[in-house]
């Protein structure tokens, strides 16, 4: 096959870019973002994708071209007897270093929004992860946990739309992970720790709550759901659950 082997390497950038374009166009892509902070993450994803995509195509095509151009039997040029180029080394050290440093600094704000700048508020709900379900607890009308009016529920996390929601994330047994794909939220639940998680949903509906940290044989079974609804509906629902829990009949 000789120099035609080079085409196998050309296939890499062509197919690589092709698959990404096909997937993005065909909906095999990030689930719909319904969070306030999510667009920053998606923007960063797209930015890094374009940047790395360009580097990917450039390096792979350069590799292909050299493989094609300098195959031994198909060209008669003498070998370029060189041990390297100091200038080139400097260029291709400084340029990526600057780019990487830029990405690093550029994203810090988004990270801080999701993980560091906790809104000053009382927790909306406590999520207690357990093999293999999500135990949910709302503080009830008095706003405090560990009182008789706490509202308990399993797997279906109801939160109000367009409001900051603060979740107290705990685990009862092993590590779990509170993953809301549509809200761009992911946080391990660690036994012995209470980790705050916050977000603000911008649209109503029901979305998946996934356990994303191996928690045992039933890890895949640990499926939850987040129901985002307007304030009135949310409160009505809480009331309904509270009534069910206090039913005397």
């Amino acid at each position, binding site marked *: 096959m000789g120099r035609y082997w080079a085409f196998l390497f050309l296939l*890499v950038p062509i197919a690589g870019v092709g698959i990404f374009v096909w997937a993005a166009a065909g909906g095999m892509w990030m689930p719909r973002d319904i969070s306030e902070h999510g667009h920053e993450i998606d923007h960063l994803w797209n930015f*890094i994708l374009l940047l790395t995509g360009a580097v990917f195509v450039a390096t792979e095509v350069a590799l292909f071209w*050299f493989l094609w151009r300098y195959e031994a039997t198909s060209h008669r040029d003498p070998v370029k007897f060189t041990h390297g180029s100091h200038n080139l080394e400097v260029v291709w050290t400084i340029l990526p270093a600057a780019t990487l*440093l830029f990405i690093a600094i550029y994203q810090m704000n988004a990270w801080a929004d999701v*993980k560091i700048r906790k809104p000053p508020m009382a927790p909306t709900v406590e999520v207690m992860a357990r093999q293999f379900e999500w135990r949910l607890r709302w503080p009830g009308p008095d706003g405090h946990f560990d009182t008789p009016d706490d509202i308990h529920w399993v797997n279906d996390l109801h939160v109000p739309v367009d409001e900051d929601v603060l979740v107290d994330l705990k685990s009862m047994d092993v590590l779990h992970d509170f993953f809301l*794909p549509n809200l761009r939220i992911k946080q391990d639940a660690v*036994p012995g720790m209470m980790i705050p998680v916050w977000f603000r949903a911008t649209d109503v509906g029901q979305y998946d709550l996934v356990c994303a940290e191996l928690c045992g*044989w039933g*890890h895949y*079974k640990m499926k939850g759901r987040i129901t985002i609804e307007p304030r009135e509906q949310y409160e009505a629902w809480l009331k309904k659950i509270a009534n069910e829990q206090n039913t005397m009949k």
Partner: protein
Amino acid sequence: MSVFTEEKHLHEAGATHDHQVAAEHHELSFLRKYVFSLDHKVIGIQFLFSTLLWFVVGGLLALGVRWQLAWPWSNMPIVGQMLFSGEGGQISPEFYTMLFTMHASVMIFFVIIPILAGAFGNFLIPLMIGADDMAFPTLNMLSYWFMWPAFVCMIASFFVTGGASASGWTGYPPLSAVQSAAPGSHAGQTLWLQGLIFVGVSSMMGSVNYMTTIIQMRAPGMTMFHLPMTIWAMFITAILQAFALPVLTAALFMQLLDRVARTCFFLPEGLIVNNAEAVAGGGQALLWQHLFWFYSHPAVYIMILPAMGMVSDIISCFARKPLFGYKPMVYSIGGIAGLGFIVWGHHMFMSGMNPALGMTFMVSTMMIALPSAIKVFNWIGTVWGGRILYTTAMLFALSFVSMFIIGGLSGIFMAATPVDIFIHDTYFIVAHIHYVLFGGTAFGVFGAIYFWFPKMFGRMMNETAGKFHFFLSFIFFNGTFFPMHILGAGGFPRRLADPYHYETFANMLAMNRFITICALSMGASQLIFAANFLYSIFWGPKCGRNPWHSNSLEWFAPSPPGHGNFDAQPLVYRGPYEYGSPEVDTDYYPQWQPPPTDRPLVQPGH
């Protein structure tokens, strides 16, 4: 014991006198020659065979994982019928967790690390630096035989109640440390820990040996900057290993004690796991993650640096051109090793670790991409303007570069902490690690096997079969792992036995089937390699000393090298990459060839 000392004596004698004569004087028994051998080449080949066998086991485990993801709960061929006939051959979910745990554990600890350091490190280091053996041959032999208790532990763990370890290859407590938390956390996890401790002992013995050998036993004229990249990579890997391993070993012992002596290093109080009796508590689950990744992130480089070194040598040889930027290549390996110690926290961005600390790790992680980028540019620079020969070894080495570009670039997504929020623990990570470790290291290792096979066995492998093997592996590898990026972009999580429960992921079944079909095909195409490898050992065409017209010292020795390696003391005159040098008529200029002029011989350091 007495035999060992005698052998050592023999070895010492060989170092100073004529090896041929010494070897003829002492005919070794079969057992001493091929089993409990002190010869680094035999030990290297023992490592190679063992790891290739484990490669088969690890590959089959992976196919089990793929089967479940493509046809969830359907009758798994062979295994399902044997172990789960009562349920109609559908595997149980804990069996699935065991499959992916053991796939990763086997591949990382029994294949990649020992095949690079154990097999190629052992075989190549003395030959490439012009030594007659390792500095500590007995230690070297022990480093191989200490793998066997580990093998036994791992195999035994499949047969104990609850099956082998099923808490992921990272073994995160409390899942791993509390017996009742998972079926695989019964005796299987204890055996897993013991196995890893033995692997660690073996690696440590190897590391000490490699460092000493490379520093002390180089041939006359072999300065540090005349070392081939393979040796540089092995050297730095050995240093990495020696510094990082004690931490892992300590962590493994702590988890072992948590399990058998209820010490609770990693267990907080108040755990209620599967209604088992509560533990005393007082520990921290995150502590394990810090300790584990303090080793296992450097270990990722332990798993790629030697392959980078070998690939550099192969590419330079078959481009018939000096390696572009030898010193930057060396420094970038050093840079990777140094930075490798301060990036472990990027595995823990979502773990509950202080998010501000996450920013620090993010910056150091971004920076570690830099030396990798420099290496890639230099490889491309090496290919530029050469006279490229497409041998199988070269094709694998080039595909290493091509695949490593993908694996390296996808790493930037994960280093970006906000993006990692979404892709952490998804198939994007799986794609990344397989592009680095399979597309990278494993392809590099295939290239190295094709390249050094003549030296190991004195015979050539079949090139046509090799190219078929390469072509199919390359196509199906990409078919298997490239779509995983797309799955990851969709948020598809790792380690779920049946992800299609979730509406978000239900539409990804078709792509998973495609991946599985590619994976099965990739597995099948390795049969070509197995046949070629085994056939060539016995019936391949015999080769001379230097079939590839390569420059480095191992090609100065006979193929295969006898006891004591070289039939004449090698003297080194130059670096290993003088291909196409205008000083000579041939397109290669071996390290051992005296200069054509009658300049007086200069032996640096002597």
